[in-house]
């Protein structure tokens, strides 16, 4: 059983901290939840507690980046993307400062905390921010690779951490690269494109579809911005029916990003799985996934719907 993704985040921070002495971690009173705690224990002098004041924390991160440090201002995704977006945008992203923003507790698995804490708009908001790169890793291996790439890539970066245990998705030796997606299964009847925790659901959906003789091309886009438009367009030209799946709002998120690629480069029928322009209320993870029609069965049903529409349009 892999460790929970937030533990992988905390441990990777420590690994990178040993390797890069100019990494600092900033916190807004959530380090035991986010697991930035591990970094605090390993490097107490490089951990800066900012209190419950996210706007100030992101400004401090900007000032530290100007002094040559690589700050990771760590908080829940809702606060990074909404409480402090003006600071993220103008203090950090506009001057292309070297700040790495981990957004913890994203989407459905935030579960019982309810609408205020379940980040769904963060992808859209960060994606709309010029200079910002956005990643939603699909498993712990990819998260580690995303964090390494974040440190090695100059400029502002936002990446998501799911409070959940995700099954291993990537092969040993996998390396994340900005703007590069990966094909996890080959098929020519329909394209399933996932990001973050939803990619493993796409693979399960592909198995369900295979039982009905439908062969899905399954792609994973850990890098949401930039996005692998070539890979997406090539698959869409082959299948002409695409389903996207994300643990976020479909408004402005991965579904929108794929719609932009399809509209401009490879018109195809599209169905978007994710949160449909509504808040996520308190509930258990399994029941919330069912409530928001985000299960593997929902993805498979959307795929069949997309195929039917494609055929009707022929």
């Amino acid at each position: 059983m892999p460790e929970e993704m937030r533990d992988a985040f905390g441990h990777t921070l420590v690994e990178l901290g040993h390797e890069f002495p100019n990494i600092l971690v900033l916190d807004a009173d959530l380090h035991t939840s986010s697991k930035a705690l591990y970094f605090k224990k390993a490097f107490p002098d490089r951990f800066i507690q900012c209190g419950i004041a996210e706007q100030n924390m992101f400004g401090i991160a900007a000032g530290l980046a100007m002094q040559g440090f690589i700050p990771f201002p760590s908080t829940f995704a809702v606060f990074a993307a909404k409480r402090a977006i003006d600071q993220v945008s103008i203090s950090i992203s506009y001057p292309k400062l070297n700040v790495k923003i981990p957004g913890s507790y994203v989407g459905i698995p935030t579960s019982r905390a309810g609408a205020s804490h379940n980040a769904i708009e963060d992808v859209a908001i960060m994606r709309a921010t010029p200079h910002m790169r956005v990643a939603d890793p699909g498993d712990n291996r990819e998260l580690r690779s995303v964090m390494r790439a974040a440190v090695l890539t100059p400029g502002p970066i936002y990446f998501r951490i799911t409070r959940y245990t995700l099954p291993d998705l990537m092969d040993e030796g996998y390396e994340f690269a900005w703007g590069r997606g990966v094909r996890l299964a080959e098929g020519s009847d329909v394209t399933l494109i996932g990001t973050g925790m939803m990619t493993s659901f796409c693979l399960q959906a592909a198995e369900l579809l295979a039982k009905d003789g439908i062969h899905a091309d399954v792609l994973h886009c850990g890098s949401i911005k930039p996005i692998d438009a070539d890979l997406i367009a090539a698959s869409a030209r082959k299948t002409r029916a695409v389903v996207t799946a994300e643990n976020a709002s479909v408004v402005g998120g991965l579904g929108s990003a794929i719609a932009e690629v399809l509209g401009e480069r490879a018109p195809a029928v599209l169905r978007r799985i994710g949160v449909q322009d509504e808040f996520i209320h308190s509930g258990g993870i399994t029941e919330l996934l069912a409530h928001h029609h985000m299960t593997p069965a929902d993805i498979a049903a959307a795929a069949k719907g997309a195929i039917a529409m494609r055929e009707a349009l022929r």
Partner: protein
Amino acid sequence: MRVKPEDLVLVEEQAYQIRRLSLEMITCGRWGHVGGAFSLAEILSCLYFHELKLDPQNPQWERRDRCVLSKAHASPALYAALALRGFFPVEELYTYCELGGRLEGHTDMTRTPGVESSGGPLGQGLSIAVGMALGFRLREQPGNRVYCLLGDGECDEGQVWEAAMSAGHYHLDNLIAIVDYNKVMAKGFIWDLMSLEPLAAKWRAFGWEVLEVDGHDVEALLQVLHEARHVRVHGQPIAIIAHTVKGKGLEEAEFNYQWHTQAPDPDTADAMLRELARNYGRPEEGYSKINDPDAKEKFYGGE
């Protein structure tokens, strides 16, 4: 500290030039904030021509002091100070707000030599300054200071007090905030729009040492800046409340919120610059582009 008479003369002359050039830029660029640039003239002049450790030939010099213009709408005054100090040619000031130029309406640190932060949304600068001050501590540069220039209306922003609280918590005695207390906001007087008093008590309550000064008295300003750099009081950050006059130097603009954001037409600018020269006992000089047909066409014929 005794300020040398020749230093006083230099700093006063540069304050006058900052006002003059700010108005030239705002006229030429057809946009900008006169009132808040004028109230800041002596503060900038004292910093850039006396107090700050900097090297115009090497704007990224690691051991320089940092100065964050949080009230980034006063950019013309900062740009004028930087040009006068030699960071870029004075003539370049006339590209203010020009697409493709280096002088953005609100500050952009990636484009303008000597500008230390990007700003515009009020309230963001002091947090950046706190980060810089923590950075100096981590980098073990005790000889450096971080200055942050705040507007008075800007102190309505909650982020200012988040930053103030964190600076107090971390005992950042290398951080100096200067409030340009010109009493006027964009749309009226402070006391009519949002009460700020007791301002000194607010800073003290957040763990700061407070010094108050007449922000147009150059000698007093230099004394206070010297004290702020060298006199460490219990490891506290220092807030200098500089009492100023919005639009200082022009009768029409003083304490007049209508000159918060407004670009004069070339003829008005010409008259204003002549008045400014008279008020500061300088040889009368008008708007330098008054006979430039391109500049006039740009003003009256442009967008």
